[in-house]
């Protein structure tokens, strides 16, 4: 530890961190640098502005079992409000930086300069490969150090506007390329995103989380309406709900920027409404109306900004009565094939649309410097009910993960009294109502088909299937068709029980037809069952070569006949041919009590009707969904 007096005011300053080269005097804000054993003044720096940060100097934490202490504090600004960066020194001598943005923390370590990288080559949304890892550039920006406190590793110059590029990698990996004022060879800082509890800082060493900035004017500068800011520590822009004035909110002051057009109707979720979603209580603090224009048609949608002190900001989007709950997502966690597909958490999201989204109306509070007319290239990738959304501007790209919500869920979550707007059309990530039942339909169909096969086998095995008659019939060459000369009477046969009958007839007519009239006669009751089947065979030659047409066998089922003694009379009919060279023959076979396979086929057909209809409806829904895609 090195102690000494501030060269400017004489107050005691001390270096406790071995890595620190400068310390900011707590009394006069002089940047004191050590020069050997002497201290020298390097000018003054602004005082830290109170923010919502839970961190503070001298807090001690543990990261992966290594103890560290927060020894320095910087506040940077690029004109949109300050953000905090904390300098930490580990017990083992390592140093790092803890940065904060919108409730998330990033612990970063200096990895040295990155040669051959130029600022102008890096654009948000692009991918790069550095330090054996793939990264997605999320932001390219610049800022000045406007305030400092504690001990720092190097001098701070409030006049220097330094450029940086932030990128994310898989599993929370984070990269900052600090270009300083140079446009090349940045300093690379690599680390990871951490939650507050992962910083290992005891609760007693954290600042109370709810620490509201005392706005000097909590009233609209234009209409004097009471604004009641709900996230004053985060808010950079306020759109007055009474008069539509857009106000800048910085360092406890509101200043008028411009008048905006107010929404034409009351908000579905009024500002200040609280609701429970995704296991947390949210308050609606902002409203945006955005739109895109495709082929001359304007498509508007609404976005409600929700805030929870520990979870940060999320969105509820309403488009044509369809609601999507959107949460921020690190770009590095998504593997993206632009305009084709996105892969996130083992799920493939298909690109649905790519539009230029324009902000048309704003109301309430926002954590960024929102502007009417703000444009962003928006892409949506869907895997219903989820979606991955990419919004890209020149300086920043943000990823969000969406989940489709039923309107009633939103209504219930926020206790809304008014009826929700009717849904129109199909939303990109709307769940296919026919798909959820598809699996059940297929499972049940499979089970019933299996049961059908089992039943068919049982019925087939238990059926008698007795061949009660099988004989060949010869028609004399001189027989006249349809007359008793072409008739044949079978020997009588017994049917022991009531049952149906399968008739099989086969023959070998040559270049002619043969009709067989069958009469199954009950010898006791004189009841007759009549049937008729026809055989034919034709062969010939034409310009295309040889052809044949044949129907050499036929079969039919007869409905059940009672038990008893029967005989079969068959009568042949054919084209009369006085010079028929040889007799015609045909065979008749009667099988008693045999299952009709037509019923099996019919039942099988009915069984597959369900899946076919379900598939058709599901496919039709998807077709209508993707008809709206512009990719």
């Amino acid at each position, binding site marked *: 530890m090195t102690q000494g007096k501030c060269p400017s005011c004489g107050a005691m300053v001390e270096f406790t961190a071995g890595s620190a080269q400068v310390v900011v005097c707590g009394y006069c804000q002089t940047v004191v640098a050590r020069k050997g054993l002497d201290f020298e003044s390097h000018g003054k720096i602004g005082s830290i502005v109170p923010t919502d940060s839970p961190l503070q100097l001298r807090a001690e934490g543990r990261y992966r079992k290594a103890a560290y202490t927060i020894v320095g504090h910087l506040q940077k600004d690029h004109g949109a409000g300050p953000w905090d960066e904390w300098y930490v020194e580990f017990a083992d001598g390592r140093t790092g930086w803890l940065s904060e943005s919108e409730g998330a923390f990033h612990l970063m370590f200096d990895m040295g300069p990155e040669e051959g990288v130029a600022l102008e080559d890096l654009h948000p949304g692009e991918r790069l490969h550095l330090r054996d890892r793939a990264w997605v550039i999320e932001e390219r920006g610049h800022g000045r150090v406007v305030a400092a406190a504690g001990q720092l590793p190097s001098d701070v110059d409030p006049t220097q506007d330094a450029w940086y590029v932030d990128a994310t990698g898989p599993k929370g990996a984070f990269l900052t390329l600090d270009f300083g004022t140079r446009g090349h060879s940045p300093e690379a800082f690599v680390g990871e995103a951490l939650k507050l509890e992962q910083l290992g800082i005891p609760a007693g060493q954290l600042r109370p989380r709810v620490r509201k900035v005392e706005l000097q004017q909590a009233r609209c500068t234009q209409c004097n309406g009471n604004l009641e800011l709900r996230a004053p520590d985060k808010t950079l822009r306020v759109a007055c709900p009474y008069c539509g004035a857009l106000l800048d909110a910085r360092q406890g002051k509101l200043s008028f920027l411009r008048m905006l057009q107010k929404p034409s109707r009351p908000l579905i979720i009024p500002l200040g409404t609280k609701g429970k979603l995704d296991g947390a209580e949210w308050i609606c603090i902002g409203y945006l109306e955005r739109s895109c224009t495709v082929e001359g048609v304007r498509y508007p949608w609404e976005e409600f900004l929700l805030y929870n002190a520990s979870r940060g900001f999320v969105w509820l989007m309403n488009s044509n009565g369809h609601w999507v709950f959107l949460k921020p997502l690190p770009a590095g966690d998504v593997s993206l094939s632009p305009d084709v597909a996105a892969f996130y958490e083992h799920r493939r999201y298909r690109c649905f649309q790519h539009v230029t989204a324009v902000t048309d109306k704003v109301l309430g509070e926002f954590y960024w410097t929102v502007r009417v007319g703000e444009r962003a290239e928006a892409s949506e990738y869907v895997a219903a009910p989820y979606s991955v959304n990419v919004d890209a501007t020149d300086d920043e790209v943000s990823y969000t993960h969406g989940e489709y919500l039923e309107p009633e869920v939103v209504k219930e979550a926020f206790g809304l009294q008014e009826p929700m707007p009717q849904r129109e059309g199909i939303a990109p990530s709307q769940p296919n109502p026919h798909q959820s039942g598809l699996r059940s339909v297929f499972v049940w169909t499979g089970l019933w088909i299996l049961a*059908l096969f089992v039943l068919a086998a049982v019925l087939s095995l238990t059926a008698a299937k007795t061949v009660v008659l099988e004989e060949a019939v010869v028609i004399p060459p001189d027989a006249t068709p349809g007359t008793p000369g072409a008739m044949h009477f079978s020997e009588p046969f017994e049917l022991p029980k009531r049952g149906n009958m399968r008739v099989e007839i086969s023959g070998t007519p040559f270049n002619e*037809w043969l009709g067989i009239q069958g009469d199954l006669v009950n010898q006791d009751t004189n*009841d007759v069952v009549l049937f008729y089947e026809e055989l034919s065979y034709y062969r010939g030659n034409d310009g295309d070569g040889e052809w044949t047409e044949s129907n050499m066998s036929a079969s039919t089922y007869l409905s059940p006949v009672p038990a008893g003694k029967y005989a079969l009379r068959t009568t042949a009919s054919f084209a009369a041919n006085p010079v028929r060279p040889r007799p015609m023959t045909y065979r008749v076979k009667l099988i008693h009590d045999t299952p009709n396979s037509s019923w*099996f086929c019919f039942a099988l057909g009915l069984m597959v009707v369900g899946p076919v209809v379900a598939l058709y409806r599901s496919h039709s829904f998807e077709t209508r969904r993707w008809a709206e895609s512009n990719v």
Partner: protein
Amino acid sequence: MKWFGGLVLLGYAALTISGWSPFTKEERDKVPGNVRRGPGGVLLWTGGYMGGK
């Protein structure tokens, strides 16, 4: 589908067991009482012909 498949199965069982064949062109008739019988008691019925082209 949960119940429909069961109904189809019941229908199939009923139709198969009954042996009913509604889609054949069979006809039912009666042999007149004055038809003589041949050897084996077969009714030598030569009337009632309906088939042919």
